[in-house]
């Protein structure tokens, strides 16, 4: 049928038809319709199924408060969105919507048997059963419960849409563009400051959209706002939360209201708004009444029926009965009557109702029943009629109707006010909480501020009924199937705070977050407990105001832009060579350079052999670098690092070990003194930012008297390590102005000069144990210099090697990697780096902690080398070490393997490990129990190659 569209009226465009489908069935509506109004116009009453009992449900509200009519909208592959509220879905051509949480169909839902047995599933039923047999919970009960629960289906593919985000600033932000909000915006705009006015609906106007008398004014005001260039008006934008200092987060829906082929650009946009003043004009939401049968499709809020009729030109029924406890019900009824909707009767719990309302109703030939309450609703999937009774207990009389309108009074929308930690005050007249105090520059205007005259009424939605509460089937939370009696049961079972009652019954925890159920639940609880509402408390509102897509919240941080991936200037060259990468902190680094069909082991073996026998080139650019400059530079480093720095000659390098104040190793690196007042520090790749921040901390807050400054030069320098017996021969032809001879340029020294014509800081250092240089050149020249060195290197059989080979080569020499061979609980002595601690220094960061009882106690884990009895067995890094392999589990573990590799140079495996009392165990055989076998290994010094270091001077 299609007889529910009124002859005229509404803001819809009757000349423009919109075709759509619901549950596969072709339907149509007009431009300006919502999915809900278009379906109602077609006589659709049944929209969804409830969460728990799968009861048939219709439309309750006309806005974001809607708990029942949830649909899934399908905009094509990857563009499926579940749980959308039909009244908030703008109609567009080709809209494809389906109902949810029903099996197999909306009309005949087999799971509705739950409803028959609902007596067995009261609040908290799951706590009381499903415990036997033990295993059955996860195996049987839980899977079933999980399948019955949930609403729509999650998307199962990648979302092709993208999302925008921005920051915005204004002097005044107005949330809600009803009459009060628009007035506030106009007033603020007149002052000249930047104003942002946002509203969640398709067009601004709020309540005025449902009141044709206000449309001319609305036109005018909208035009005025549009004309002011200091005003930004954002419809389809929901303020989801208020955060500290008037930081309001809102999300704008850009394309979901358009047909798929009209949609272009980002789907949604996140607005992160910092406002001087925030004005909340979010209005109020009408409250349902709690009576037997109040969830039959066709029972809805009076304000919703008014909106459907006056804004969308749709009658929600042919014969309506209004159940009111508030004047607004009468006013809406009269407005509906005026719009041509047939109101059969107005039933009001109150005996004394303002005479002009009664006269108005009589004049409209509407039967009036004061002092009566609806006690029952007939009809299953649609209303057939109601039973009313005097004071809810008298003899019942039936009234035929096909829709029932509830006018239970109003709840100010104070969500954002609460987000801002504004306090609330109980207002008897409203029967609701209204804003009280806040420390933010924040105010509420219009209905949400409690300042709105839409008549008087009773507070409290529970109507008197012939049945006792514990037998009542009156619903409070429609989506979660919470009945008044569930709240009674919760109280009976000892739950007295609203937080408890809410969690036990799940009242207010559905996707509408209690917009229509919180206050009714609260007042029912207060009634049962015979205690004032204020003593029961109000559940705090949390962001978001309405459900918000993850997509808009993550904005641009999606896929390729999720997080920056840092690459050195030589990275592209490595890629061209087919390098395999690993991520290290924010960087990616070449791990190895496979040739042909080589796997990692083969490639690394080749790279290692070549470095040891000829030469290898390695991109060390990601190492952190800090320029330390000033007269007190040496003094500062002396206080930061464990070892002495004042005595370091310009032109020389030193290994620096950095501890936290807790005495454990946090970073290391080789640093150079370029001039009496200038040092070039290096840190680990991952430690760069951390170390600089730590040094700044000490410099600024502890030793601010020192004349020294720190500058990050990590990205100023590209660093090319040239390592191997032929290293000098490779760079010799390229270097100008530096005498590379061993005498003039010994190991652990630095020179400034030129290479390939560009400035260089040339370090003679080695992390491989071979003769080695680290060429520092300004990053912009890094690639060119690298290629020059590479070309030269080809004459000497050079390889490019990656981090894996670097790890193997340094392990052969027993050099540690902070973060791999140390783990934040390792002291210098534990790591065998006691030599790097200045014994004579009175103080350095972390020194005092090294004297703590447990740090000086015997038996600490110490870094040692391990040689497996089977030279080909490569231990797994992280494998645990025991002294007695035959002990039962739990075993006593005395350490773990920190580094382990096959060493091509030595033709066997090598490993480093942290072992309790390790240095006293030299020569001991320890055991590494693996799942399939136990590997035994001998404890040795962590130095496997060229112990005397002769190759350094090759």
């Amino acid at each position, binding site marked *: 049928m299609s007889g529910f569209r009124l002859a005229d009226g509404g803001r819809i465009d009757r000349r423009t038809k919109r075709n759509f489908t619901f549950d596969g069935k072709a339907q149509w509506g007009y431009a300006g319709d919502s999915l809900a109004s278009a379906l109602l116009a077609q006589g659709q009453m049944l929209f969804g199924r409830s969460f728990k009992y799968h009861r048939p449900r219709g439309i309750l509200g006309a806005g974001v408060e809607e708990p029942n009519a949830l649909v899934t909208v399908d905009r094509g592959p990857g563009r499926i969105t579940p749980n959308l509220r039909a009244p908030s879905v703008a109609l567009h051509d080709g809209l494809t919507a389906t109902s949810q949480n029903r099996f197999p169909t909306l009309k005949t839902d087999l799971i509705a048997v739950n409803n028959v047995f609902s007596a067995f599933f009261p609040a908290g039923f799951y706590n009381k059963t499903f415990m036997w047999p033990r295993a059955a919970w996860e195996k049987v009960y839980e899977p079933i419960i999980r399948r019955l629960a949930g609403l729509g289906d999650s998307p199962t593919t990648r979302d092709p849409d993208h999302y925008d985000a921005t920051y915005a600033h204004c002097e005044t932000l107005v949330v809600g563009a009803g009459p009060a909000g628009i007035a506030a915006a106009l007033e603020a705009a007149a002052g000249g400051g930047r104003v942002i006015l946002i509203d969640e609906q398709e067009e601004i106007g709020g309540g005025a959209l449902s009141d044709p008398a206000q449309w001319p004014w609305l036109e005018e005001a909208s035009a005025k706002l549009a004309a002011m260039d200091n005003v930004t008006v954002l419809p389809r934008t929901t303020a989801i939360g208020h955060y500290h200092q008037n930081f309001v987060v809102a999300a704008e829906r850009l394309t979901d209201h358009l047909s798929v082929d009209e949609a272009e650009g980002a789907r949604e946009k996140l607005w992160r708004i910092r406002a001087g003043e925030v004005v909340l004009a979010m209005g109020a939401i009408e409250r349902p009444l709690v009576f037997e049968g109040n969830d039959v499709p066709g029972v809805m809020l009076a304000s919703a029926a008014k909106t459907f009729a006056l804004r969308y030109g749709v009658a929600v029924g042919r014969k309506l009965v209004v159940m009111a406890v508030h004047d607004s019900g009468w006013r809406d009824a009269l407005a509906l009557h005026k719009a041509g909707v047939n109101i059969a009767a107005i039933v009001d719990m109150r005996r004394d109702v303002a005479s002009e309302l009664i006269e108005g109703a009589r004049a409209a030939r509407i039967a009036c029943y004061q002092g009566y309450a609806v006690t029952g609703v007939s009809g299953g999937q649609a209303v057939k009629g109601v039973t009313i009774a005097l004071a809810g207990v008298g003899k019942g009389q039936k009234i035929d109707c096909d829709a029932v309108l509830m006018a239970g009074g109003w709840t100010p929308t104070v969500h954002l006010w609460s987000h801002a930690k504004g306090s609330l005050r109980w207002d008897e007249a409203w029967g609701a909480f209204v804003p009280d105090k806040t420390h933010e520059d924040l105010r509420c205007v219009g209905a949400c501020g409690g300042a709105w005259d839409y008549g008087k009424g009773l507070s409290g939605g529970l109507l008197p009924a012939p049945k006792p509460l514990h037998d009542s089937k009156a619903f409070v939370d429609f989506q979660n199937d919470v009945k008044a009696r569930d709240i009674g049961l919760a109280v009976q079972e000892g739950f007295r705070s609203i937080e408890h009652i809410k969690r036990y019954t799940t009242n207010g925890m559905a996707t509408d977050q209690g917009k229509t159920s919180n206050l009714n639940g609260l007042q029912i609880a207060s009634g049962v407990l015979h205690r004032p509402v204020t003593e029961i408390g109000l559940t705090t509102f949390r962001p978001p105001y309405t459900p918000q897509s993850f997509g808009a919240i993550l904005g641009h941080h999606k896929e390729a832009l999720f997080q920056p991936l840092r690459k050195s200037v030589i990275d592209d060259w490595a890629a061209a060579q087919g390098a395999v990468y690993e991520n290290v902190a924010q960087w990616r680094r070449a791990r190895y350079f496979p040739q042909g069909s080589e796997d990692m082991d083969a490639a690394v073996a080749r790279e290692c052999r070549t470095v040891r026998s000829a030469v290898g080139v390695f991109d060390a650019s990601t190492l952190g670098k800090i320029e330390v400059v000033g007269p007190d530079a040496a003094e500062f480093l002396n206080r930061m690092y464990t070892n002495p720095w004042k005595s370091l000659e310009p032109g020389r390098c030193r290994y620096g070990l950095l501890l936290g104040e807790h005495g454990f190793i946090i970073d290391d690196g080789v640093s150079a003194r370029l001039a009496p007042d200038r040092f070039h520090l290096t840190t680990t790749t991952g430690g760069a930012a951390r170390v600089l921040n730590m040094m700044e901390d000490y410099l600024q807050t502890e030793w601010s008297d020192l004349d020294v*400054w720190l500058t990050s030069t990590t990205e100023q320098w590209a660093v090319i390590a040239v390592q191997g017996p032929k290293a000098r021969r490779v760079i010799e032809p390229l270097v100008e102005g530096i005498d590379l001879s061993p005498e003039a340029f010994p190991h652990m020294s630095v020179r400034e000069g030129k290479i390939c014509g560009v400035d260089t800081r040339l370090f003679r250092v080695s992390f491989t144990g071979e003769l080695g240089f680290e060429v520092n050149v300004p990053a912009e020249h890094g690639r060119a210099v690298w290629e020059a060195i590479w070309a030269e290197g080809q004459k000497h059989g050079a390889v490019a090697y990656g981090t894996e080979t670097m790890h193997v080569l340094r392990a052969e020499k027993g050099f540690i990697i902070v973060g791999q061979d140390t783990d934040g609980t390792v002291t210098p002595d534990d790591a065998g780096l006691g030599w790097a601690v200045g014994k004579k220094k009175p103080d350095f960061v972390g020194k005092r902690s090294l004297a703590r009882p447990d740090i000086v106690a015997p038996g600490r884990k110490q870094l040692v080398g391990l040689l497996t009895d089977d030279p080909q067995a490569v231990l797994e890094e992280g494998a645990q070490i025991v002294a007695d392999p035959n002990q039962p589990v739990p075993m006593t573990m005395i350490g773990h393997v920190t580094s382990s590799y096959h060493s091509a140079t030595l033709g066997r495996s090598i490993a480093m490990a942290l072992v309790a009392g390790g240095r006293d165990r030299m020569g001991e055989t320890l055991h590494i129990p693996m799942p399939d076998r136990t590997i035994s290994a001998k404890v040795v010094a962590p130095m496997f190659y060229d112990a005397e270091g002769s190759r350094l001077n090759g």
Partner: protein
Amino acid sequence: MVEIAEIAVSAAELKLGTEPVQGAGVRLSHAGPRSRYSLRARDAKVLAEVVGRTLPGKIGDQAEGVICLGPDEWYAILAEDTVLPRGEGLPVSVTDVSSRALGLVLEGPAALAVLSSGCPLDLANMGVGRATRTVFETVEIVVWREAEDRWHVEVWRSFATWLWNAFLAAMPGAHG
């Protein structure tokens, strides 16, 4: 049945553009090579003498490419190949960081909106000629308002690719 399509472009595949990109009301381009120095000193006068330039006195001020970033810190964006003396032995720090950063330029009426897509500052209220260190989402940048509609953005070299593409994502018309 979950089926996750491959992403079109990965973080590793992002490219740093070389040519200017024109979007609706905004143009993104490279500022080109510059000499850059980090200048530090307790006493601005001593430093000013060393580098032979006037140093703006207030944080956020800028004079001839020298920006006051902090009470003892200035950042100089100078013509390519400008060399400043190190002032060795003096209580100052003059450090060449020419290669550390790249300069990107956003210009046009929509430039402010592009920058505001990820920068939390109220840039509309930032005076022409002023500059500051801040962030674009999680990435540190230095923003210098060279003219009403022209913004010079300094970013560390390895973050430039991400920033370039983040700007593109916020540029109407230039959207990938």
